[in-house]
């Protein structure tokens, strides 16, 4: 698998570090990691930082993760970038909403590195 540039979107800086660590433990070869604290900030970050993978929370201030996924296609070079949601919102209706909005995967918090591996690697393999 090629080196991966990832964007991690979560309003918790501690959770962003946990997600990055879990990606590395899952065997994802990270070339670069950029971060954002909400969906609106993430759309701005993407303009200057093209990425191969996005991991995104749902419940965030300013712009939530579902709205971010809906607006992702409006950012140049970001159409088709796979998004995996990582969230405490674990209900079926949230999963359906996320997948309908364009997310490719869904991980419920709390999560293990194995769960990250299980949900992220297939998405990256499909992309490559």
């Amino acid at each position, binding site marked *: 698998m090629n080196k991966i540039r990832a964007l991690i979107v979560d309003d*918790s800086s501690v*959770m962003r570090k*946990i997600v990055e660590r879990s990606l590395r433990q899952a065997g994802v070869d990270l070339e670069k990691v950029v971060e954002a604290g909400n969906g609106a900030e993430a759309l701005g970050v993407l303009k200057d930082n093209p990425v191969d993978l996005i991991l995104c929370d749902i419940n965030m201030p300013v712009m939530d993760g579902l709205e971010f996924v809906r607006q992702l296609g409006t950012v140049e070079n970001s159409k088709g970038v796979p998004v995996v949601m990582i969230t405490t919102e674990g*209900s079926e*209706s949230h999963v359906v909403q996320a997948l309908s909005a364009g997310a490719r995967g869904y991980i419920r918090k*709390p999560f293990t590195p194995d769960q990250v591996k299980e949900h992220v690697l297939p998405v990256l393999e499909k992309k490559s």
Partner: protein
Amino acid sequence: MSPNAATAASSHQEDWLPILELAIQEVFEIMLGCRLEPADAAEHQTAPELTAMVGLAGSACGILSVCCSNRAASAIADHMLGPENSRSEDHIWDALGELCNMIAGNFKNKLSGVDGSCMLSVPTVITGGEYSFHSLADGGCIECSMLFEGALVVIRLDLHS
């Protein structure tokens, strides 16, 4: 509280306590890599120095709070961040808020019939113990007192009837 509300609240307290305990243990085991031990809060009488809160709204309604000492919160942040990351005061507050958020989410995801009709707020963290808590939730409360690395952590769910 009306008699019906009191009965419902009592039933919730009995039914939901083991679910809350399981939700707490899972979060600590999976995200921090350690188990909590049950504690007798009366034996560890120290005023909480930090309180994290997350609101639940919808079919399950109330406030979940996590209260602990600065020492316990620092240890929680250390476990969540791992040895490769240094931690600041902001990290400690953030870690406690996120822990509270995950417990609330894990708890509501385990409740049958609640599913997507219950939403969580973003977490709030209060520093200092000199405050009074007045919740409009009138459905009683469920409380779990646990020991994390020898320090008391109290997790409380105040319910709306």
